[in-house]
């Protein structure tokens, strides 16, 4: 009998109460593992029992009308066609329909469940071994058959430092990828990581025969749509994959994406009936859209995105915890959402939605706007009326252009800080300069950004650059051993009650030292023509058009 079978038998005996504790300790010792390891494996088995469910190929909706060309407005052309390198929404909106992923977040499911796409199922055979069963009969648009080798190639491509993929950090727990057979692939992990199936929902699978030039100019995926053409500044066209493995899908013949920078123009185009989808209109236009019989708003089923402010912990003044806490109390979160987000969204200082199991109730009233408290922290830092030893306390706040609400929020923050004697310079930067100032050559004190994944597995949430890891990928550049230890512990703990304790402690610690400002959660919605059916707003902009059809 193999060791795996002896262990499995032992676990089964424990699960079914066939042995007492003394027998458990004796048999576990014989296998060379401690009892907690057995119990962890038992937890994995319990988890695995859920996650080995079969994900059958969905059946097409008999009511759906087949055919038609969908016209979608995006805010800009993609900055790259390599979806594994770029993270911008305009690339995701397009490329997620040319490629498939092993798993996907079902945006039509209120729980945002992770389900199988190219994978029909998965199982943790051990806490650090995750096996995926792949679907048969899948081909790339170029004709190659999809196999486990393509999965291995893709993961290794992402993890290769020469690829410079930002996704490498979310796959850090993968040690090696093993091809068991053509339709079975095993991920060997450095530590248990139950969030891996969720992480893989953002990793598009490339063909192992992909070349750098082909990736950047003629994308070749297994997805429902085939790359046709890109006329920069005018349109991108993708056409129906007639051999798509999800029989009966997609319904549409093609999708034509048009980049329109001005949101007012985009709304006018929608009102004129010259487009079918407009991604992320301004929040103030939601009522206008909902009041127009020709249009409708597709709202994400959960508020997965939120607004944050990076604080540059690597330099003065925000390397001082007291200054950071002063700033945290000087941000009027409730007014920000009321005044500048058209009342959509809400203050929330937790990384998670208040309906999420990991949410800590200390955030119900944490960091309520309080200039007196802010001032007391300034005084603790040695500043009186914004001055220390004759030096005026100054800081800058930066944000990318194209977000008027960020400008308004920054100016509101500037006014608040002025009341307690602090000079804040507001800087609106064009995108490339903003990226340079916050990441590549950091030169900022505060910066707005949005963060996502507020509704998913907490380990996934905390893998974002706002929270983790320490080092260049962490934009705020904070260094706190307790926080990084809690993130690691929460990610590898399999017992949900214990994870809850860990994440409660994480939120307490985060609020205590305030390495970054969590402002609140935002409403994500898109504008659709009334005839568009089957559309579910994806929280991470991996917009799925497989199930979309035109009722005309």
């Amino acid at each position: 009998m193999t060791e795996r079978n002896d262990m499995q038998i032992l676990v089964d005996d424990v699960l079914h109460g066939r042995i007492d504790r003394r027998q458990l300790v004796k048999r576990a010792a014989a296998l060379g593992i401690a009892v907690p390891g057995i119990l962890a494996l038992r937890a994995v088995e319990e988890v695995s029992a859920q996650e080995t469910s079969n994900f059958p190929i969905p059946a097409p909706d008999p009511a759906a009308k087949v055919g038609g060309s969908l016209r979608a407005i995006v805010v800009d052309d993609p900055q790259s066609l390599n979806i594994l390198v770029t993270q911008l929404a305009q690339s995701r909106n397009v490329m997620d329909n040319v490629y498939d992923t092993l798993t996907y977040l079902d945006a039509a499911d209120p729980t945002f469940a992770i389900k199988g796409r190219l994978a029909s199922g998965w199982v943790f055979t051990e806490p650090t071994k995750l096996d995926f069963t792949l679907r048969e009969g899948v081909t790339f648009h170029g004709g190659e058959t999809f196999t486990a080798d393509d999965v291995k190639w893709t993961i290794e491509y992402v993890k290769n430092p020469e690829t410079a993929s930002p996704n490498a950090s979310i796959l850090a727990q993968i040690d090696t990828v093993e091809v068991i057979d053509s339709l079975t692939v095993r991920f060997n992990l450095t530590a248990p990581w139950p969030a891996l199936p969720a992480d893989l929902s953002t990793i598009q699978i490339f063909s192992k025969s992909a070349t750098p030039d082909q990736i950047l100019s003629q994308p070749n995926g297994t997805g429902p749509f085939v790359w046709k053409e890109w006329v920069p500044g005018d349109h991108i066209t993708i056409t129906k994959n007639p051999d798509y493995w999800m029989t009966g899908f997609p319904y549409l013949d093609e999708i034509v994406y048009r980049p329109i920078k001005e949101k007012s123009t985009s709304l006018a185009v929608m009102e004129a009936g010259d487009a079918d989808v407009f991604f992320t209109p301004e929040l103030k236009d939601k009522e206008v859209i909902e009041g127009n019989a020709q249009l409708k708003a597709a709202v994400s089923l959960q508020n997965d995105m939120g607004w944050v402010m990076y604080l540059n912990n690597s330099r003065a003044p925000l390397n001082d915890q007291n200054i950071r806490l002063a700033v945290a109390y000087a941000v009027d979160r409730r007014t920000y959402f009321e005044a500048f987000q058209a009342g959509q969204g809400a203050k929330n200082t937790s990384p998670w939605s208040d309906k999420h199991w990991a949410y800590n109730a200390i955030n119900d009233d944490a960091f309520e706007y309080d200039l007196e408290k802010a001032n007391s922290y300034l005084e603790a830092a040695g500043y009186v009326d914004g001055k220390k030893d004759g030096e005026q306390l100054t800081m800058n706040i930066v944000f990318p252009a194209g977000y008027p609400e960020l400008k308004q929020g920054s100016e509101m923050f500037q006014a608040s800080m002025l009341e307690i004697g602090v000079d804040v310079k507001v800087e609106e930067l064009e995108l490339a300069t903003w990226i340079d100032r916050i990441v590549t050559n950091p030169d900022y004190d505060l910066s707005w950004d949005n963060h996502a994944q507020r509704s998913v597995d907490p380990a996934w949430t905390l893998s974002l650059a706002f929270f983790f890891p320490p080092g260049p990928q962490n934009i705020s550049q904070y260094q706190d051993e307790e926080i990084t230890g809690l993130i690691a512990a929460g990610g590898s703990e399999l017992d949900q009650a214990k994870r809850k304790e860990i994440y409660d402690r994480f939120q307490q610690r985060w609020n205590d030292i305030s390495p970054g400002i969590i402002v609140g959660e935002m409403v994500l919605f898109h504008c659709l023509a009334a005839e568009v059916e089957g559309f579910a707003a994806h929280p991470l902009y991996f917009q799925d058009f497989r199930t979309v059809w035109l009722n005309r």
Partner: protein
Amino acid sequence: MASYIIRRLMQAIPTLFLISGIVFLVVDFIPGSTAAVMLGQGATPEKVAILSKQLGLDRPMPVRYGIWLGDVLRGDLGESSISRQPVWTLVGRALPVTLYLTLFALFIAIIIAIPAGTISAIKRNSWADLLCTTFALLGLSIPGFWLAIQFVYLFGAKLQWVPLQGYISPREDFVESVKTMILPALTLGIFLAGPLTRYLRSSVLQTLSYEFVLVARAKGLSERRVLFSHTLRTSLIPFVTAVGIQFGYLLGGAAVIETVFTLPGVGYMAVNAINDRDFPVVQGVVLVVATGFLLINILVDVIYSILDPRIRVGRGGS
């Protein structure tokens, strides 16, 4: 005349070198890089360095300029760092759009400016003069992007008189292309009509003071004939020069209008390329637009000399 044209063309070459060099230098100094734009918030210095090396952007600026110049002399403008499409293809696609827009806009501007400027001059200090001058001032003062957005909303969304589908080539469907281009051309045309109206007004006023006009009246010619056969014809000479110069500016200056109406012209392409730090496209656009501007200036000088026999270009001329 031929030798004049050749001499002007030869003079244009060092000018183009200088322009391309300055633009290369300026764009290189702007913070951010193509690699950083691609990576977004994942643009750590290490990843930017790796991607920059793959894009050939890690070499010193003079080396990159030298390579680019060598390619240009071989007729190769390189390829876009973002879309990987040849710059010639991108510019070749965008230039007709801008030409179409600017010619259409100039046409509108001229049909407004000629009557407005003339009436304004011959009925100086009257209500008609005040109206035309005010209109000219408004055209100059109102921000083009604001006017564009109002037109889009009113004529496109609310009244639905024109489609808002971006660009349709006149070769594909002439009527539809006019419909899609009328709003942007009108926006730009109104903006252009302002200075052209004022320019023609001044020119007509000046011409009306010349002796030959007095002589024409003294000969008993009708006021209509004095105006159309003598005054206007002479006044239009500097007006044509002004139109030519405006056309040159428009080639690169229609970026705002192209952006609001999402017309894939050279202006819109240049704005996107600068935002994306797509250096080969920026350089390509600048080179093409600068060449066009210089050629138009030469053409204007030649036309001027044809219209006014007193002006001779080339040997012994100005």
